[in-house]
């Protein structure tokens, strides 16, 4: 304890080291603030749309007197609300859609219409707490620790200090430990405040703190190994920045390129085009071309499955579903490909403490690939409930009664 106090007092007098720690504090406050602002904006967007959702749907339904027309114009809001911890790691919420307004048409094109590029794994992303902790903090730690020994060697104090301390451990461990602790606290205090403001669970905050400290400890070990070399401080700094570049940027980038090449994934636009073509082509095909595959999936409507008029809503919505059925192989490939890439990225992250930390924080925040795919699955499940609600109305075609539509399924965002 005495040694830590001694080194804390010593650190307080070292303007260069204090500058890096204050910078870490400011960056952490900024990253936490940006994260909270972004999450609040997302929540406000969801709240604003939720406030209008039921009203818009009621308004659309009130204008019609047929089940098919009402279903066509009725939009349903689906969304993945950010978790209480999402402010710390926005992750895939930057690239994957987390909000849709779906209706009874083909679903996959609705899910992917804003998804012209792949929403695949994220390794290095926006400036949030996860990016700061994973990629920037190690650089600050390098700046704080790289010349602990070498700087004293150059100043001619190394042997004097060690001789005074008796053992190297009694000197370097508390000196490096105080700097390490100072940096960790500078990073974590704004994060803890943010977690308290956002109401994040204690367990998640604790796990995230352990992840950040563990990541910094891994970097400390790297710096300690390199710092033992009898080289000048600039040479050590250059070597450590090179290692940081490799571990924090090059390996993740190379892994990403390698995984993308090794695991081909169709992009969202392909799904959109395929399904729209399927739906548009259905207008020109014989009715049986739609109804046969539809009834194969829904034999319960076989008795009412004959289409006699040139246009019937049951046929129209059947070819919307058949559009989804035709897109199923590519949708499955897309989903599995993203999961396969994510798994591969998880293995690759073992080579990069930065990627591993960022992925860990995104997992805790529920903003990783698996969480976003889970949201898409919830949208699919909700849409299936919508279809199950509407098909009896389309196929049996009872007299139109808007009160029946009060019983429309409601989307539940809970996982």
């Amino acid at each position, binding site marked *: 304890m*005495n040694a830590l106090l*001694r080194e804390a*007092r*010593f650190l307080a*007098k*070292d*303007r260069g080291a204090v500058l890096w720690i204050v910078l870490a504090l400011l960056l952490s406050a900024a990253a936490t603030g940006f994260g909270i602002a972004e999450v609040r904006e997302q929540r406000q967007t969801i709240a604003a749309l939720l406030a209008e959702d039921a009203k818009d749907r009621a308004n659309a339904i009130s204008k019609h007197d047929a089940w098919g027309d009402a279903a066509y114009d009725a939009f349903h809001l689906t969304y993945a609300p950010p978790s209480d911890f999402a402010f710390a790691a926005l992750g895939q919420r930057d690239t994957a859609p987390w909000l849709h307004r779906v209706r009874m048409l083909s679903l996959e094109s609705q899910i992917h219409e804003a998804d012209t590029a792949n929403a695949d794994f994220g390794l290095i992303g926006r400036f949030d707490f996860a990016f700061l902790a994973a990629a920037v903090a190690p650089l600050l730690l390098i700046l704080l620790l790289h010349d602990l020994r070498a700087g004293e060697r150059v*100043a*001619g*104090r190394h*042997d*004097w*200090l*060690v*001789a*005074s*301390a*008796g*053992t190297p451990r*009694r*000197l370097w461990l508390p000196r490096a430990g105080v700097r390490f602790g100072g940096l960790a606290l500078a990073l974590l205090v704004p994060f803890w405040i943010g977690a308290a403001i956002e109401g994040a669970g204690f367990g998640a905050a604790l796990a995230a703190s352990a992840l950040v400290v563990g990541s910094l400890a891994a970097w400390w070990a790297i710096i300690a190994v390199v710092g033992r070399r009898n080289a000048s401080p600039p040479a050590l700094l250059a070597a450590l920045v090179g290692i940081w570049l490799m571990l924090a940027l090059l390996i993740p980038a190379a892994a990403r390129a390698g995984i993308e090449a090794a695991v081909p994934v169709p992009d969202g636009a392909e799904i959109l085009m395929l399904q729209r073509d399927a739906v548009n082509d259905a207008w020109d095909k014989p009715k049986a071309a739609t109804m046969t595959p539809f009834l194969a999936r829904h034999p319960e409507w076989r008795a009412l499955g004959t289409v006699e008029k040139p246009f019937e809503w049951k046929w129209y919505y059947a070819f919307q579903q058949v559009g989804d059925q035709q897109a199923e192989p590519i949708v499955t490939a897309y989903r599995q490909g993203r999961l396969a890439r994510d798994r591969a990225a998880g293995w690759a992250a073992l080579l990069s403490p930065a990627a591993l930390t960022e992925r860990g924080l995104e997992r805790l925040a529920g903003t990783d690939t698996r969480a976003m795919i889970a949201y898409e699955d919830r949208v699919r499940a909700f849409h299936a409930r919508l279809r199950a609600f509407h098909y009896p109305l389309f196929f049996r075609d009872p007299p139109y009664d808007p009160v029946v539509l009060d019983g429309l399924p409601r989307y539940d965002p809970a996982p």
Partner: protein
Amino acid sequence: MTPTLEARSLVVMRDGAAVLNDVSFAIAPGEVFALLGGNGAGKSTTLLTFLGFLQPTAGDVLVAGRSVGDDVEAARAKIAYLPEAASLYGHLNAYENLGYFLDLAGRKVSRAALDAALDQVALPTEARQRRMQSYSKGMRQKTAIALALLRDTPILLLDEPTSGLDPVAIDEFHAMVQALAAAGRTVLMVTHDVYGACQVADRVGLLRGGRLVGSFAASDAGGRIDTETVHAAFAAREAA
């Protein structure tokens, strides 16, 4: 009586070359031993070996009768070391520097004791609160000497201790070393300064090329080593 410091047939090899070669000497408690030698003679290597920073390739070094290699921490705890060109922290003042190094050595010293030591080395009072980056070389050396005094250890290893000191301060330093020896401290100093060594030391050893090539004791010369004799021997050895 067990010597406080002893080198036994000490050999230290660095990069394949012998920096110290079969060096033997023993320093009794309360004795001041000065090692003289030119650049690269092995003077600082001798001190670093006693401090455990360099391992003997052959032979041994002992502190208070115990091999340094057996317990380097115990050996260091008995030694106050003053390195050549002692470089204290420029961003700290004299009190903070002394406090830091003493704390590192596990010693708590009062402000009054710090002032007493700084008075002893004649560091101006007005300078003590200033950052050391504004100090002259002599002022820095005085502060480092004060630190060695404050360590209150039975052994002092001094590497060119009068470097940067003015003539008056050198005389005061020599008087201080003799007083410390009289109080029972053992001093091993290495220096280029033949005259200073003869003035302060009980014995002077000549190191050349890693070998101890001559030794002069005050007791053999009526209480004081003859500077001219040592100088002549030193010059002859250096010329050889």
